[in-house]
C-alpha cells in the first residue's frame, strides 16, 4: 500500500512528462482517426440505405438496394471466396518463381538469358491482363495445348504478376551490398554458393513485404479470370445472379464487400509479417 502511494505521489521528471504528452497526443490522434472512419463508414452505409436525408434546404436520396435479394444470395456469392483465394495462391506461387528467374536473368551477363528476361518483362507489361487471359484460353489450343479456363487464368495471372514482381526481386538482389559478394568469394564460395547462401536470403527479406502487396492486388485482379466463364469465383457468381435476376447493383455491392473484407484481412496479415521481418534489422 505504502509502495503504491509513494510512486503515485512522486513528482514526474521532465522527460516523463514530455513522454506522457507524446503518448496522449498519439492516443488522441488515433481516437480521432477511428472516429472519422466511423463517420465515413456511416456515410457510405447511408448512401446505400435508400433513405432521404435533409441537410438544410437540400434533400439527398440514397441509392435504393434490395436487401432481400442480398440476403438470399449471400451464401451463393460467398461460395466463390475459396475459388478466388485458390486462384490467387496458385498464381502468386507461379509469379514468385517467374519473378525470381526473370530478376536473375536481368543480372546475367549471358546475352540470350538477359534478352529472354527483358523480352518477357517487356511483352507482358506491354499488354493488358484481360487480353492475356483470353490469349491463353483461345490461342494455345491451336498448338495442341488445351488449358481449362482455370489454368489459362492462373497462367496469365502468374506470368503477368511475375513480370511486374521481377522488378521487386531485382531491387532486392541489388540491395545486397557488393561487399557481401566479395566477402563470400574471399572465403572461397563459388558464385552459385554465394547466390544461394549469401545474396538470396538477404534479398528475399527485402522482397517479401512487397510480394504481400502484390498478392493483395492479385486477389482483386483474379476477378478478370471469370471472363472466360469457366471459373466460378466471386465475380462470376455475383455477375451471373445479378444479371439473371435484374440486380446487378446489389450483386456487385456484395462482391465489393467481400473483396474489401478480404483485403482488410490480408493487409492485417501482411503487417504482422512485416513487423516480424523488421525485427531482424540491426
Amino acid at each position, binding site marked *: 500500500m505504502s509502495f503504491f502511494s509513494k510512486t503515485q505521489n512522486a513528482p514526474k521528471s521532465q522527460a516523463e512528462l514530455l513522454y506522457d504528452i507524446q503518448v496522449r497526443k498519439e492516443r488522441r490522434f488515433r481516437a480521432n482517426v477511428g472516429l472519422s472512419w466511423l463517420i465515413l463508414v456511416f456515410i457510405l452505409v447511408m448512401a446505400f440505405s435508400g433513405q432521404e436525408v435533409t441537410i438544410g434546404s437540400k434533400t439527398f436520396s440514397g441509392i435504393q438496394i434490395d436487401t432481400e435479394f442480398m440476403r438470399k444470395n449471400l451464401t451463393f456469392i460467398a461460395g466463390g471466396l475459396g475459388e478466388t483465394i485458390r486462384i490467387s495462391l*496458385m498464381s502468386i506461387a507461379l509469379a514468385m518463381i517467374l519473378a525470381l528467374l526473370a530478376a536473375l536473368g536481368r543480372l546475367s551477363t549471358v546475352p540470350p538469358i538477359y534478352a529472354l528476361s527483358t523480352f518477357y518483362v517487356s511483352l507482358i507489361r506491354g499488354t493488358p491482363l484481360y487480353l492475356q487471359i483470353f490469349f491463353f484460353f483461345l490461342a494455345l489450343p491451336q498448338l495442341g495445348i488445351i488449358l481449362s479456363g*482455370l489454368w489459362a487464368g492462373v497462367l496469365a495471372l502468374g506470368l503477368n504478376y511475375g513480370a511486374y514482381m521481377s522488378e521487386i526481386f531485382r531491387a532486392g538482389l541489388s540491395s545486397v551490398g557488393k561487399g557481401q559478394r566479395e566477402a563470400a568469394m574471399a572465403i572461397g564460395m563459388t558464385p552459385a554458393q554465394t547466390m544461394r547462401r549469401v545474396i538470396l536470403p538477404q534479398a*528475399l*527479406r527485402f522482397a*517479401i513485404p512487397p510480394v504481400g502487396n502484390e498478392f493483395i492486388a492479385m486477389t482483386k485482379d483474379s476477378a478478370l479470370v471469370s471472363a472466360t466463364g469457366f471459373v466460378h469465383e466471386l465475380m462470376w457468381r455475383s455477375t*451471373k445472379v445479378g444479371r*439473371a435476376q*435484374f440486380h446487378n447493383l446489389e450483386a456487385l455491392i456484395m462482391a465489393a464487400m467481400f473483396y474489401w473484407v478480404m483485403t482488410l484481412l490480408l493487409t492485417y496479415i501482411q503487417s504482422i509479417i512485416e513487423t516480424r521481418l523488421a525485427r531482424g534489422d540491426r
Partner: protein
Amino acid sequence: MKKLLTLASLLVLASLVLAACGTPATEAPAATEAPAATEAPAATEAPAATEAPVMEKDMLAAVLERGYILVSTDPNYEPQSFLNTEGTRPADTKCPSDALTNAEIQGFDVDAATAIGDALGVETCFATPSWDLITAGSWSDKWDVSVGSMTINTSRQQVLDFSVPYYYTPAVIAVAADSGFDTIESLAGQALCAGVSTTYEAWLNNDMEALGLPDSSIYAAVPEGITVVPLETDQECAQSIASGRKDFVGYVTSETVVDANLAAGLPVKKLEGAVYSEDLAAAFDKSSTLDTASLLAKVDEVFTAMHADGTLSELSNKWFGMDITQAPN
C-alpha cells in the same frame, strides 16, 4: 536468415500443394473415363456399329462412353438459363469440376438439354463459357454442344452446325416507360441498345448479311438514322434504363427477355409488333475433332419427337407462361 528462407519456401510449397490439389479435380473426367470403358462395348454398340469406320472418333460414341454430355449455355438469362443458387452438386456426379450439374442451373434451355441427355441415357452437364466464345466456334472440344437459345443465321452457319429449331423467338423493341415512343418508326434518329454480338445488334446495324435471316421472317425495317449502343449483354441495356441513365431510349431483344424485364418491374414498355423472328436451335462446332454428325442426328430426332408429343410446349408453358415452340408462318 534460415527462418526466412524456410518461410518463403513454405509459402511456395503450400501454394504448389494447393495447385496440385486442384489438378486431380480438373482431370477428374479423364480419370472417370477409365472405369466407364468397361461399359463402353454395350453402350457404343448401337450407334458406332452402324457408322462407317471413319478416322475421326464419333462424338455420340464418346459421350456414351464417358457417361455425360457437356452442354454449353449462358446462365445470364431467366427463364432460358439461370443459376439455381440453392441447388447442391450431387456427390456422385460425373461432370467435370468446372461444369455445373443439372441441380445447379435451371431454365427452358436447361430442360431441353437435359431431355437430350436423358434420351441418350447419360448425365447432362453444363459448361458456362461467355456467349461470344460460344458463337465464335473453335471450341477446342471444351464442350460438346450448345443448347443456349442460339439463333440460326448464315454467318454462324459458317462455323457451326445447327439442329432443327426447338423454339422460336420474336424480337421486339422495348423503350423506357416514360419516353413517349409508341411505334418502331417514331424511333428514327434515336439511340438504341443491344447485347454485343447478338442478332439484335446486327439488325440495328441494318447488317442483313450478319443477321442472315430469310426475308420472310423479317417484319419491320430498322428506324432511320439511329445510333447503336452495344453493351455486354441485353440485360445491361434494361438495367441501364432502370437505373435512370439516358444513353439510349430503348433496346432490341427477344420478347421473352422483355416479358421477364416487365415481370421484374423494370420501368420499360414493349413496342407493338415483332421486328423479326428467330429460329433457335442446338449448335455443334464444325472444327470439333470428333465427328458430330451422329449426335446432331440424334438431337434432331429428340427435338422432333418433343415437338410432336407436346413436351416442348409443356416446357414452354412452364418457363415462359406461353407456348412459343410453334413455328411462326
